[in-house]
């Protein structure tokens, strides 16, 4: 018996001392993504993208000779679940970095946990507050809300519209967008005539758009990521609210265009260039990256690539680049991310700094519109045509 006990103790000690060595041979990267649930259209392509990329990287010998071990946790867009997964990944799995979460609400919930655990967090969510104020270990890859709002306001100015109605959903994304709209409106000379927040599970928004119509607004800006963003444009057109409709970058999912059908035509929204990769001019810096990602994703999963999967692509590739430069020391890798300059990703060209943990500028957004059920760049010629069209309808 005694021998057994001693053997057991010995084995236990051996395991404890051996396991860090084993772990050192792979780089553990955690991911907290809303693979299912209301934000599944974000999380599902993100998870697929990560799996595809990690497979590919490992097949080609890993990063600096070490394989990546990817641990994906499905948060179902619940901030509470995201929080417990974050603790689990940091404390038990001791991951090198975490990619995600998919939504802003979840990211804000785990921001402090990542900070305390000194674990690099590369969020795939949009809200400005994630990186403003800057937290040492928290980065994000999607373009900022404020840039999206700024692009929309510029477009409004071009079309000569100053009075708008704003609708947003009661989610982290909707709230963050609404705040930016309210903050930036005065400096762009935009008046918000109606400002309404609706429930994320709203099934019909006729009354809300009626309110906009009653206020005689020049444009409708909607900020949400739920099916409601397709419902709202249908309702607006049904009651004859024929003003230009602007959506957030959350609209960059062709599924919603299909769902809204004819009502989606002419909707204007800022988005990353992935959706229009084919039509970019030849010399464009992002063209080759975008086309390759799009082709790989679409051949592998037989579904359209979305900008959201692209956010996960950017997050992982930035992490890989940082490890390539700085090795697997977490502190050094973190500093390496801050020093990345001119990195071409799907969301834009990233240039980080200790003050800027997003790395993208306002030009990373392109203004897109929907034409014949497809996303196209809102070219100058079309802008004029549309303006005339709107006038005619009035």
């Amino acid at each position, binding site marked *: 018996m005694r021998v057994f006990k001693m053997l057991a103790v010995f084995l236990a000690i051996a395991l404890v001392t051996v396991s860090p060595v084993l772990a050192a041979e792979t780089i553990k990267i955690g991911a907290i993504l809303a693979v*299912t*649930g*209301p934000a*599944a*259209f974000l999380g*599902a392509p993100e998870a697929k993208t990560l799996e595809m990329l990690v497979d590919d990287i490992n097949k080609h010998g890993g990063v600096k000779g070490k394989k990546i071990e990817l641990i994906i946790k499905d948060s179902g867009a619940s901030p509470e679940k995201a929080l417990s997964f974050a603790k689990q990944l940091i404390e038990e799995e001791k991951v090198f970095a975490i990619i995600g979460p998919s939504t802003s609400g979840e990211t804000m919930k785990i921001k402090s946990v990542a900070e305390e655990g000194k674990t690099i967090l590369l969020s795939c969510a949009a809200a400005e507050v994630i990186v403003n104020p800057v937290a040492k270990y928290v980065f994000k890859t999607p373009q900022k809300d404020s840039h999206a709002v700024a692009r929309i306001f510029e477009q409004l100015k071009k079309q000569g519209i100053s009075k708008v109605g704003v609708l947003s959903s*009661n989610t982290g994304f909707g709230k963050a967008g609404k705040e930016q709209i309210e903050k930036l409106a005065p400096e762009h000379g935009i008046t918000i005539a109606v400002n*309404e*927040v*609706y*429930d994320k*599970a709203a*099934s*019909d928004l*006729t*009354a*809300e758009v*009626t*309110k906009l*119509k*009653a206020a005689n607004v020049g444009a409708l800006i909607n900020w949400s990521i739920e*099916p409601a963003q*397709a*419902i709202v444009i*249908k309702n607006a*057109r*049904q*009651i*004859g609210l024929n003003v230009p409709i602007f959506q957030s970058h959350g609209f960059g999912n062709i*599924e*919603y265009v299909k*769902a*809204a*059908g*004819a*009502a*989606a035509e002419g909707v204007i929204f800022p988005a990353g260039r992935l959706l229009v990769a084919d039509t970019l001019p030849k010399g464009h810096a992002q063209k080759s990256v975008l086309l390759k990602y799009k082709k790989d994703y679409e051949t592998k999963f037989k579904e359209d690539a979305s900008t959201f999967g692209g956010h996960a692509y950017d997050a992982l590739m930035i992490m890989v680049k940082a490890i390539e430069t700085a090795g697997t020391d977490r502190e050094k890798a973190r500093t390496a991310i801050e020093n990345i300059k001119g990195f071409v990703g799907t969301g834009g060209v990233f240039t980080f700094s200790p003050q800027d943990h997003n790395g993208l500028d306002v030009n990373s957004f392109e203004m897109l519109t929907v034409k014949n059920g497809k996303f196209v760049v809102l070219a100058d010629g079309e802008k004029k045509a549309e303006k005339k069209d709107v006038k005619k309808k009035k």
Partner: protein
Amino acid sequence: MNIDFFFQYLVAGITYGTIYAIVAIGFNIIYNTTGIINFAQGEFVMLGGMISVALHAFVPLPAAILAAVILTMMIGAIIEILFIRWLANPSVLRMIIITIGISILVRETALHIWGAGVRALPYFTGSEVSAISVGDVHVSPQVLWVIGISAVTVTGLNLFFGRTLPGRQMRACASNRNAARLCGINAKNMVTLSFVLSAGIGALAGCVVSPITYIQYDSGTPLAIKGFTVAILGGLGNSMAAVAAGLILGVLESFSIWIMPTAYKDVISISILLLILFVRPSGLFGNKEAAGLKEF
């Protein structure tokens, strides 16, 4: 406030109301037979919408809807036979927990089959942007479809429960199960039949509202919550009352948006609902004595 838009808000309210009402009707049927609330009713709505969208890829719209309704009815029967029929003398609480469990099961199964994307049937007439306009008031033709189908369903159900033998047998089971059995009514079959019926009506509701609201694997629950509220407000077991209560709640919500920020919509509608229930605990059109006989 602008009085010109009064009718547009009214129409918006009617749109909300009919969506709530058509979902609420399904709750009443199972309640009428078993005295329980089926918390999986929203899932029948979701299934109807999802199956019809899936089938519509192959067959024309009416056939897809018919097939979706029949398939959902079969699913309703299977669920009842598997989970409820064998219970000897189920308490209300136990039935509630079982139906909640079924709703989670159905929702997750749907997620695995169809994924998390949003779907919708095409508009039955017209398109996403078309509207029937009377002066400055516009209404989507689909809303008229929902109203029409609700009306037909309610009339049909009233005839069924009032005039036909199976309908009366079902009501007998609800009033007093033992007495009904002494009269030679197969109570278990009646419960199965009620699940089949409510699954069918739920599925039909899912088909007609899907162009307006869109359907995804988890859209059953929010629809069911409003449907349930409306069923209670009207008085459980009364389909006609459910429609009236649905319209009242819908119009209340719409007008609350008119004068207040949208965020207060549910506060206002639920406060009014509570007030009504304080004054009339059996619902607006419910029968106090009849309600007293039920366990729940």
